[in-house]
């Protein structure tokens, strides 16, 4: 799992930074590398939530830890909080490593205090949405490998279709609509917009209603995942 969450995004930061920017004018290379680094950081966060988390849930179920915990005087919420905090720590580590590699490769960002704080809020929304989807996968896919691969598959496909790994401007209009609704890609665009510029985001994701839609759908996914997990994973058969 370390490979998909940290290794894979770093590999793509390296490939993207040196292969995709070959013919670009020098003045935009650093920011292109910045946009690539952000996309790959988002990809890492997606994998952590959508593949790591369900993999852990399935593993705990398979080796009897979930059964053991269910027999103890612990509420599902406590178990859930522990999982989310562990995931948060891992996601922060993954994001920092990917961005650090980006920096080392020459990526640059526009930093202002407010933009940075707003970017952190969008990163949190990506984390929340990914964790929600991860809990849904972990609840319904029982086997460890199945859970991990379902998460990785969903991450790769949704990242490709929603503009996380492909430029928003090149997406067909139907996928552009999807990119705005899918909170992970709209948050990715918002971070790119804030830290690199609108031309890299492809549109203005901070227009009036878009941030609310992003936050709303991200929170909905999280709540749905949470309810599903506490109801079905902790369900007494």
């Amino acid at each position, binding site marked *: 799992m370390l490979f998909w969450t940290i290794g894979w995004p770093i590999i793509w930061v390296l490939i993207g930074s040196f292969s995709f920017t070959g013919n670009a004018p020098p003045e935009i290379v650093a920011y292109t590398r910045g946009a690539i680094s952000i996309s790959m950081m988002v990809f890492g966060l997606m994998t952590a939530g959508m593949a790591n988390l369900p993999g852990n849930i399935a593993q705990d179920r398979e080796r*009897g830890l979930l059964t053991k915990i*269910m027999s103890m005087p612990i509420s599902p919420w406590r178990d859930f909080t522990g999982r989310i905090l562990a995931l948060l720590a891992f996601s922060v580590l993954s994001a920092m490593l990917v961005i650090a590699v980006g920096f080392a490769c020459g990526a640059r960002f526009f930093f202002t205090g407010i933009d940075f704080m707003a970017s952190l809020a969008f990163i949190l929304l990506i984390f929340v949405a990914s964790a929600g989807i991860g809990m849904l996968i972990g609840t319904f896919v029982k086997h460890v490998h199945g859970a991990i691969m379902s998460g990785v598959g969903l991450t790769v496909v949704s990242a490709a279709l929603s503009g996380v790994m492909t430029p928003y401007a090149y997406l067909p209009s139907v996928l552009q609509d999807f990119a705005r609704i899918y909170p992970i890609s709209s948050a990715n665009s918002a971070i790119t917009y804030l830290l690199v510029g609108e031309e890299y985001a492809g549109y203005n994701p901070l227009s009036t209603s878009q941030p609310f839609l992003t936050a709303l759908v991200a929170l909905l996914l999280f709540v749905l995942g949470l309810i599903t997990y506490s109801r079905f994973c902790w369900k*007494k058969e």
Partner: protein
Amino acid sequence: MKSNITNYNSILYGREQAIQTFAVLADSVTKEYGKKEVLKKVNLKINKGEFYALMGPNGSGKTTLASILASVKSLTSGKIEIFGKKPEDAKKITGYVPQENFSSPLLTGKENLMYFAELLGYKKSEAVEMVEELLKKVGLWEDANKRVSHYSGGMRKRLEVATILFPGLKLLILDEPTTGLDPSARRKFLGLVQELRNKETTILLITHIGADADLASRVGLIDRGVIIAEDQPEKLKRNSGLENVVNIETSIKNNKVASLLSEFSEKMKVLETETGYRVFTEDVERATPKIVRSLDEIGCKVIRIETVKPSLEDVFFKLTERKVSEVD
């Protein structure tokens, strides 16, 4: 309407006394998975401080019953009380070690127990002392800082038992804890279980191994969702009608040998073991030479023949005509 068992207890001991007397009280417990009835109106009473073994083959319903007592599974009908409380309300006093190895192989023994201590809400300073005490109790203090992936099967099981030794737990449920352990690790583990016996702690051991069940003060034999017999191990053996058992190690094991041996076994089939057969006969002295001769005539060498006392496996076989190691 109150159940018969509850009424019986209440009449005999009064309500308060009944609660104090029985650690586990199961009344007509039924569990169904779809159309399959896994437990069929099971009644079970385990006294406070008792060491009770529930023995049966795989698929007999013993793990399901343990899971219901541990509040991991629900029952379809019937009633269960753990020290007078519903299983879900008795989690603070019930410790459950499931069959699977649930400890994390990536963490050390100490870290695993710290994790459970923190889950149970102990402060870190309290937990450190308690974990040290528990590791010493299960004989793992010297290996406390080793990763569990480097533990043997027996060590890992002892570590997992330590998770139910936190203060306040009165009912300990151990589901098949010795499965997969080598004989020496098994002995060591069972020694630990024996040490846990005291007036305040009730132990329920789920097993399919007669020698493990032998250690209990009372044994229940469960088959196809029904407890078919229940008593002290020695009484179960004595009352089974089995006087002596001829244990034979043979050079060949096949239908012909089994069929020949069954002629010496009264009203019963012979029980096949790993190395040969067990024959149930009243007149051992007369039967033994005949058995050796008959086997010799069909070209089967007798490697070893001995008369032994019946085991709980033999009792189970006598009652069900099935081996306890058989899978349903």
